[in-house]
């Protein structure tokens, strides 16, 4: 149940995508996000879906696994869909009291929902194919140029990696506490909304107390191993661009060009 959340999880595989430099993948993901917002037609989305499909195929991450991650955000997608559905003036398709669905509204809400879904699937590919450690290393290197403007790139990267690292730990902790409270007769499945929120208290308080405990232990363990921040720190695995990263870079650039060009094409 709670373990179904795949957002931010890593899927171990030996594909080309997995072996790409984390920097390539981060920049690629950024480009992808920009492209999603550049696209202005369904045909354009068709292109993006095609590319994403090829990417998923190469990465060998099971599609089922990726879609499970969507379950967590279904509510947000539905909300966007419904809000957009009723908010546009235009050709009326359906009318009931104060609710009106227009052709433009339907078009718009499908468009927005598709955009959100593609956004989530695409960005989740980054964490699915990149180990958290590589991700942080890549991010740190990418942010390094901003150090001279006072940006603590190492600390930011570290904070991110700790946050990512502790998602599964906290989920596990939540699962354990839920079971323990269920064993004491707690019921999380019934009651109205207020009742349900109230029922969460026996989970939230131990979880909160627990996260402080975990944070303290982690800080102590880091200090015991002489961690003192990013200055002068070396790495066990230096990340380097290889030929496949250049190939990936060229492909990404070409795709960006296609997406931009698609904006001016008379497409549906």
């Amino acid at each position, binding site marked *: 149940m709670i373990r179904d959340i795949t957002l931010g999880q890593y899927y171990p595989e030996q594909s080309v995508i997995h072996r790409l430099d984390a920097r390539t993948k981060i920049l690629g993901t950024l480009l992808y996000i920009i492209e999603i917002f550049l696209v202005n037609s369904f045909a354009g989305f068709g292109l993006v879906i095609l590319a994403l499909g090829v990417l998923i195929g190469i990465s060998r991450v099971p599609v089922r696994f990726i879609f499970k991650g969507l379950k967590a955000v279904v509510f947000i997608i539905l909300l966007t869909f419904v809000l957009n559905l009723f908010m546009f003036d235009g050709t009326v398709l359906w009318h009931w009291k104060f609710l009106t669905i227009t052709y433009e509204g339907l078009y718009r809400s499908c468009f927005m929902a598709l955009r959100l879904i593609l956004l989530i699937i695409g960005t989740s590919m980054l964490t699915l194919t990149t180990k958290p450690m590589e991700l942080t290393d890549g991010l740190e290197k990418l942010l390094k140029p901003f150090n001279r403007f006072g940006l603590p790139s190492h600390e930011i990267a570290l904070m991110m990696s700790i946050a990512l690292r502790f998602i599964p730990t906290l989920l596990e902790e939540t699962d354990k506490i839920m*079971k323990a409270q269920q*064993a*004491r*007769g707690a*019921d999380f499945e019934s009651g109205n909304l207020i009742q349900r929120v109230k029922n969460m208290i*026996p989970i939230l*308080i131990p979880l909160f107390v627990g996260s402080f405990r975990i944070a303290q232990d982690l800080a102590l363990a880091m200090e015991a191993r002489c961690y003192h921040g990013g200055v002068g720190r070396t790495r066990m695995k230096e990340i380097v661009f290889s030929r496949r990263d250049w190939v990936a870079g060229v492909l990404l650039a070409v795709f960006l060009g296609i997406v931009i060009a698609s904006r001016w094409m008379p497409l549906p």
Partner: protein
Amino acid sequence: MSITVENLTYTYSKGLPNETRALEDVSFQLEPGEFAAVIGHTGSGKSTLMQQLNGLLRPDSGKITVGEVCITDPSNKMTEVRRKVGLVFQYPEYQLFEETVAKDVAFGPKQVGMTGEELDRVVEESIRLTGLDYEEVKERSPFELSGGQKRRVAIAGVLAMKPEILILDEPTAGLDPSAHRDVLELIRRIHRKERMTILLVSHNMGDIAELADRVLVMNRGKLVMNGTPAEVFSRGEPLWEMGLGLPPATEFMERLKDRMPGIDAAQLSIEDAAKEICRYLKGRKK
């Protein structure tokens, strides 16, 4: 109340790459009032088995009957099963959440519908049963107690639901020796006073030899031994191979056997071991 487990099988994350068989064809029976211990090294399926017994996990196949009720039958209400089978998790103090000890202990019984004077009485009884001073701790925050006290409050929280079967998952893990003794003493007292059927998961063979009437040994999801402590601990060799050990007294006697051939090594307590050594030495003088 008795427990009957028949051909229980359970697999984690079925259909995913990290699929693991946690339980395989496990069957055993516990008589009312029996004190059984479960041993097995980490990942042998002990904790999974415990969670099956009060319906937190559902088996893939097999049947569990508690008293007269088949708890693996989906039509039965789980809340009733969970009231009858009290489960104390590992490090139960991490589940404390209320402002005061009394309120926290009252959480369970309140959920099953107890109110008013009955509730107050049950809370007081359970806290006293764990050996804590009720008047002193009831208004205190559970978070300011010592580790051993917290654990006893957590156990009281489960006892307050008046279970007929009590399952404890490593209740003494991480406690100092005096708190360890207190918790053991508390378990023994519950068993004697309340006539509960108890299932104890532990890595401390000494404690098990002292308390249990029966020992169940789990290895890789299978129940590999099921017998009295004397029977199980007479088989040191297979236990060692499973990464388990013997009670200190038994181990000592096993080693002594090399020097004193003919001595009976199957002693579970230090007292019995001492008696056997005396008997052996006297016999040799003659």
